[in-house]
């Protein structure tokens, strides 16, 4: 049996590359949030309590556009529904003896990247390993947000403008490799883009608020994908 100390240590090492990747993205998110009317402290609080890139990005946009709380809840819920699937898969890999407080803390750390690493780790997953795994990414996500929010306004405008594309480039890095490997994913991506452009161009539809538009486009595109290609054991 391995000691709890070394399990935590193993987790920390596995989380280091994730933390490095998170820093550039959370720094950019901090710049965005301040530009959209958040104070550095509120932006940091959002990162600390949410720990989700696409969800936070959409949430800030919706609040800045003065969207309703219903729009905010539905859009962010839909964007984060994938965590439900990840936690469903993760639940069967956890040590069955884990207590409720331990499960509450582990649930806080389920992100795309942390889930991806945890799903490759030895079963059963213990709490120590998972705490180690999530520790550096959480620090990096929260610290990067604060630094971006605090330094964003004093950065040279040319640099701040260039950093504005970083979050979108991260989105490209997330969707291109699976779209390249799987024609079904590529089809869903192309359909979502086409629907989104259609909604933006068509009179009547283009006045739809950001959150509702993204929600409707996603349900249509992912729904078509599921009807055409329901697959076994997808994750």
């Amino acid at each position, binding site marked *: 049996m391995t000691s709890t100390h070394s399990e935590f240590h193993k987790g920390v090492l596995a989380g280091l590359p994730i933390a490095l990747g998170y820093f550039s993205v959370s720094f950019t998110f901090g710049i965005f949030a301040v530009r959209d009317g958040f104070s550095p402290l509120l932006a940091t609080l959002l990162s600390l309590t949410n720990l989700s890139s696409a969800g936070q990005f959409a949430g800030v946009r919706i609040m800045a556009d003065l969207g309703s709380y219903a729009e905010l809840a539905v859009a*962010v819920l839909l964007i984060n529904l994938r965590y439900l699937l990840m936690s*469903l898969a993760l639940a*069967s890999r956890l040590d069955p003896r884990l207590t409720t407080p331990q499960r509450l803390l582990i649930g806080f750390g389920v992100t795309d990247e942390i889930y991806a690493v945890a799903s490759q780790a030895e079963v059963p997953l213990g709490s120590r390993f998972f705490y180690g795994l999530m520790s550096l990414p959480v620090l990096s996500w929260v610290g990067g947000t604060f630094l971006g929010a605090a330094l964003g306004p004093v950065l040279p405008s040319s640099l701040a403008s260039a950093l504005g*594309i970083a979050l979108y480039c991260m*989105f490209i890095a997330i969707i291109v490799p699976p779209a390249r490997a799987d024609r079904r994913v590529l089809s*869903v991506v192309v359909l*979502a883009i086409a629907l989104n452009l259609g909604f933006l161009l068509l009179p009547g539809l283009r006045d739809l608020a950001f959150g509702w538009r993204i929600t409707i486009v996603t349900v249509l595109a992912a729904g078509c*994908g*599921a009807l055409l290609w329901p*697959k076994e054991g997808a994750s």
Partner: protein
Amino acid sequence: MSTGEILLGILVMVLVTYGPRVLPLLLLRRQLQSAYLQAFFAYVPYAVIAAMTVPDIFFAASQPAAAVLGTAAALLLAYRGRSLITVALGGVAVVFLVETVLLYF
């Protein structure tokens, strides 16, 4: 937006973000049965991210030409399977260079 409105917004976001993450860990011990639902959940992140990225990425820099070239660089790096941070910094570097060059025209 007032601080109170933002705090309420953050609370709403916490509920819909933390709920899907933690409920399966507490309640469910078996896999989702429906192949349709599994596929739907699997496709959602790609559809969401694609819709949030296009066309907004083309307006993410102060010069549209810089944004288009930055997007092309990110697509190329991602297509070659480079890491998240390489793709992000590659796109930022191209936008920064193009915008700097454009200052002289």
